[in-house]
C-alpha cells in the first residue's frame, strides 16, 4: 500500500516546487500514474489474502473504491483549472495541496485494517474538505455549509469512537481481518441497541440518511467544483463502506434495528427524488439526486443479503462516477454564466453539441439505463429489497420513475428547446472539459463490459 501512499505524499512537494506554469500538468500527470498503480489492486484472488501489512489491507470492497479515489484526483485538478486561474500562485498551490491531502486521507481510510485507524482518518477527511468549502466556495452561505457539514458528521461520529473503544475492550482487538473470526451474535437488549446506534449513526449521517441529510445540499452547492466532486463521489461512499464493514459485528441485531432506517430510506428516496423535480438550482438538483441514490445503498446494506451487497458496491462506484460527472457538467455551465439557475442557460445543444452528448450520456447513466453499472446496482438492490418485503417494489418502482423524470427534466431544460438569447456569446467547450467528461464516462461504460470487479467481496 505504500506504493500508493508515498507517491501521494510526494505530490505535495511536487506542487510546491514546480514551476508556475507546470503545476497543473505535473500534478495531473502524476495523479494519473498513481491511479494506474491502484488499478493493480483490482486483481483480487478471492480468498482474502491481500493483506499488505499490519495496518493496511485491500479486498474486493475497498479496491474499487480505492481506484475511484485515485482516479478522481487528476479529474478534480482538471476541473479546477479554470476557476483558480485568476488566483495568486500560493493560493493555487494551497488548493492543490488540500486536494492531495484529502486524497491521501481517503486512500488510507479505504485501506485501513484497524477500526480506530479507520476512524481517525474518517474524521481527518473532514478538515481538508472544510477548508476547501469554506475558503474557496463562492457565496456567503458557504460558512453555514461548512458548519453544518462539520457538526453533523462529528455529532454522529463521536458516539462511534466510544462504541469502537468499547468493542476493542470487549473483543481484544479491532483489526478488521481478525474480528471476522471472533464475532459473537449480538442479542437484543437496550445497551446493545445503543451500541448499534452508536456504531451506525456516523455512517448514516455521512451517507446521508434522509432525516439527517440537511448538510448535503448545503455542502455540495457551496463547494467549488473539486469539493463537490470529491464530496459526491467519494466522501459519501465512506459512509457506505463503513456501514458494510461494521455490520459484520452487529448481527443479528441488525434485523431488528434496521426497520426505522429502512423506512426513512425508502420514504426518503422518493421524497428527495420528488424535490429534484421542483429544483431551480442545478447543483442542488444533483445533490438531492445523490441523497436519493445513497438511500438505495442504505437499504441494500441494511438488508444484508449477498445480492444486496453486490448491488450496494456496484451502485456506489457507478454513482460516484455519474454524480461527479454531473457536477462537472453543471460547473461548465456555471463557469460560463456564473449562475446555477437552470433556466438561465437553456438550449445548449444548439451552441455546444458535444457537451450535449455528454449531458445526454450522464443523464442516461443517472437514470440507470441498461446495460450500465448503474442499472446493475439498482436492479440488484430492487430485487433484494423485493425478497425482503414484497411491498417495497412499489416504492422502488416509483423511485425509478421519478429518477427518470428528473434526469430527463434536467437534460431537457438545459439542452433542448430554444436557447435563451443572452447566452449566444458563451465560450465554446474547452478540450479540457471534453477530456474531463470522457475520463468520467469511459470507466463507467467500460465497467459495464466486466462488472464483476466492482461487485464486491460476495461475488
Amino acid at each position, binding site marked *: 500500500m505504500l506504493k500508493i501512499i508515498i507517491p501521494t505524499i510526494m505530490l505535495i512537494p511536487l506542487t510546491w516546487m514546480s514551476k508556475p506554469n507546470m503545476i497543473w500538468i505535473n500534478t495531473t500527470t502524476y495523479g494519473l500514474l498513481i491511479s494506474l498503480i491502484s488499478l493493480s489492486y483490482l486483481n483480487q484472488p478471492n480468498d482474502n489474502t491481500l493483506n499488505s501489512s499490519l495496518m493496511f489491507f485491500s479486498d474486493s470492497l475497498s479496491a474499487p473504491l480505492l481506484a475511484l479515489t485515485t482516479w478522481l484526483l487528476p479529474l478534480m485538478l482538471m476541473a479546477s483549472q479554470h476557476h483558480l486561474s485568476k488566483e495568486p500562485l500560493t493560493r493555487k498551490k494551497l488548493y492543490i495541496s488540500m486536494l492531495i491531502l484529502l486524497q491521501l486521507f481517503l486512500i488510507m481510510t479505504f485501506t485501513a485494517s484497524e477500526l480506530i485507524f479507520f476512524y481517525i482518518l474518517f474524521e*481527518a477527511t473532514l*478538515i481538508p474538505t472544510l*477548508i476547501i468549502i469554506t*475558503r474557496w466556495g463562492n457565496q456567503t452561505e458557504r*460558512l453555514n455549509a461548512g458548519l453544518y457539514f462539520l*457538526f453533523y458528521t*462529528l455529532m454522529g461520529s463521536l*458516539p462511534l469512537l466510544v462504541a469502537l*473503544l468499547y468493542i476493542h475492550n470487549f473483543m481484544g482487538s479491532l483489526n478488521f481481518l481478525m474480528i471476522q473470526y471472533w464475532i459473537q451474535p449480538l442479542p437484543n437488549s437496550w445497551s446493545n441497541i445503543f451500541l448499534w446506534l*452508536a456504531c451506525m449513526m456516523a455512517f448514516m449521517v455521512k451517507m446521508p440518511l434522509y432525516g439527517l441529510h440537511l448538510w448535503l445540499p448545503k455542502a455540495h452547492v457551496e463547494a467549488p467544483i473539486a469539493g463537490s466532486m470529491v464530496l459526491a463521489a467519494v466522501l459519501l461512499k465512506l459512509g457506505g463502506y463503513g456501514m458494510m464493514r461494521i455490520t459484520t459485528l452487529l448481527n443479528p441485531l441488525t434485523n431488528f434495528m434496521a426497520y426505522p432506517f429502512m423506512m426513512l430510506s425508502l420514504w426518503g428516496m422518493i421524497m428527495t427524488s420528488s424535490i429534484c423535480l421542483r429544483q431551480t438550482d442545478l447543483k442542488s438538483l444533483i445533490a438531492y439526486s445523490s441523497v436519493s441514490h445513497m438511500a438505495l445503498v442504505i437499504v441494500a446494506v441494511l438488508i444484508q443479503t449477498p445480492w444486496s451487497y453486490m448491488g450496494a458496491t456496484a451502485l456506489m462506484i457507478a454513482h460516484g462516477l455519474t454524480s461527479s460527472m454531473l457536477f462537472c457538467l453543471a460547473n461548465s455551465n456555471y463557469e460560463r454564466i456564473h449562475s446555477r439557475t437552470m433556466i438561465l442557460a437553456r438550449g445548449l445543444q444548439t451552441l455546444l453539441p458535444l457537451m450535449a452528448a455528454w449531458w445526454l450520456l450522464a443523464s442516461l447513466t443517472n437514470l440507470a439505463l441498461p446495460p450500465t453499472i448503474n442499472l446493475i446496482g439498482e436492479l440488484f438492490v430492487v430485487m433484494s429489497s423485493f425478497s425482503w418485503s414484497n411491498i417495497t417494489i412499489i416504492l422502488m418502482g416509483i423511485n425509478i420513475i421519478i429518477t427518470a423524470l428528473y434526469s430527463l427534466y434536467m437534460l431537457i431544460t438545459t439542452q433542448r428547446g430554444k436557447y435563451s438569447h443572452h447566452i449566444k456569446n458563451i465560450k465554446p467547450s474547452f478540450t479540457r472539459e471534453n477530456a474531463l467528461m470522457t475520463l468520467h464516462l469511459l470507466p463507467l461504460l467500460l465497467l459495464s463490459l466486466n462488472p464483476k470487479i466492482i461487485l464486491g467481496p460476495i461475488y
Partner: protein
Amino acid sequence: MKPPILIIIMATIMTGTMIVMLSSHWLLIWIGFEMNMLAIIPILMKKYNPRAMEASTKYFLTQATASMLLMMGVTINLLYSGQWVVSKISNPIASIMMTTALTMKLGLSPFHFWVPEVTQGITLMSGMILLTWQKIAPMSILYQISPSINTNLLMLMALTSVLVGGWGGLNQTQLRKIMAYSSIAHMGWMAAIITYNPTMMVLNLTLYILMTLSTFMLFMLNSSTTTLSLSHMWNKFPLITSMILILMLSLGGLPPLSGFIPKWMIIQELTKNNMIIIPTLMAITALLNLYFYLRLTYSTALTMFPSTNNMKMKWQFEYTKKATLLPPLIITSTMLLPLTPMLSVLD
C-alpha cells in the same frame, strides 16, 4: 518592570511551583502555593488600570481561600492519620476538602467564575502564565492524592466544567475570555480521569500547555486581543493565519491533530472502566468548544474581513516580536498523533 525585579518575581513563581511539586510535607506544599500566588500578583498587575487591579484582587481572594481550605483539609488529615506526608488520604472529609480546594485553584466548575474575568483583565503574557504554568502545581497535588479522591465529586465537577467551558465560550469575542473558557473545559477533561488513570491527566496537561502556549504566542505576535483584530491578520502575517487555523482545530480535538490524543486516551480509559454515557456526553459537549474555535478560524483564515481598497496589501515586514520556540511548539501541538503508540512505554 525593571529587569532585576522581574527576574526575582519570575524565579519566585517557578520556585513556588517547584516546591509544591517536589515536597512530601503538606506544610511545604502550602508554602509553595502561597509563594506562587504572592509572586504572581505583581505580574498580573503589570498595567495600572482598574481592570487589572480587579483581576488581581479576584485572583488573590480565590487562591487564598483555596489555600486555606487546603490547610483545613491537611489539618483534618493530620488529626486522623497523625502525619504530614503526602500520600493516600484515609479520611473522606479531608479528601473532599482538599479536592475542593485544588479544583478552586484550577478553575473547575463550580469554582470557575474567576477564570474569565481574571484572564480578561490582564495582559496576554500574564494570561499565558496564568493559564499554563499555574495549572501545574494543583494538578501535581491532585496526581499525588489521586487514589483517595472521591470519584463522584470529581466526575461531577469535570462534567459541569466541560459543559460550562463549552457554553460559556459561545458568546465571547474577546480572545482572552475564549482561552479562559477553553481552559475550564480542558481542566474538566483532565479532572475526569485523574481517579482512573492519572498518567492520562499528565498527557492531557502537557498537550494542553503546549497548545495554549502556541495559541497565546500567535496572539501576541499580532498583539490581538479581540476577534476583530485577529481578523486583520491575513494582511500582515498570512502564514500565521494558517497556523491559527490548524491550532484552533487541534484545540478543538479534531483528528488527526494532536489535540485529539488526550480526548481519545481519556475516552479509552473511561470506557475501560465501564463508563459509556459520561465520555459520550463529554465528547459531544466538546463540540461546543469546537464551534467557537471554528468561528475564530472563519474570521481569521477562511474569510477575508471586509476592507477598503486602501487597506489591502500592507508592507509585510519581518517579525520584530520575539516568538520564542514558536515553530517547535506549533509542530508538537498539531502533529503528534502518529506518535501515540509510544504511549505503550507506560505499561
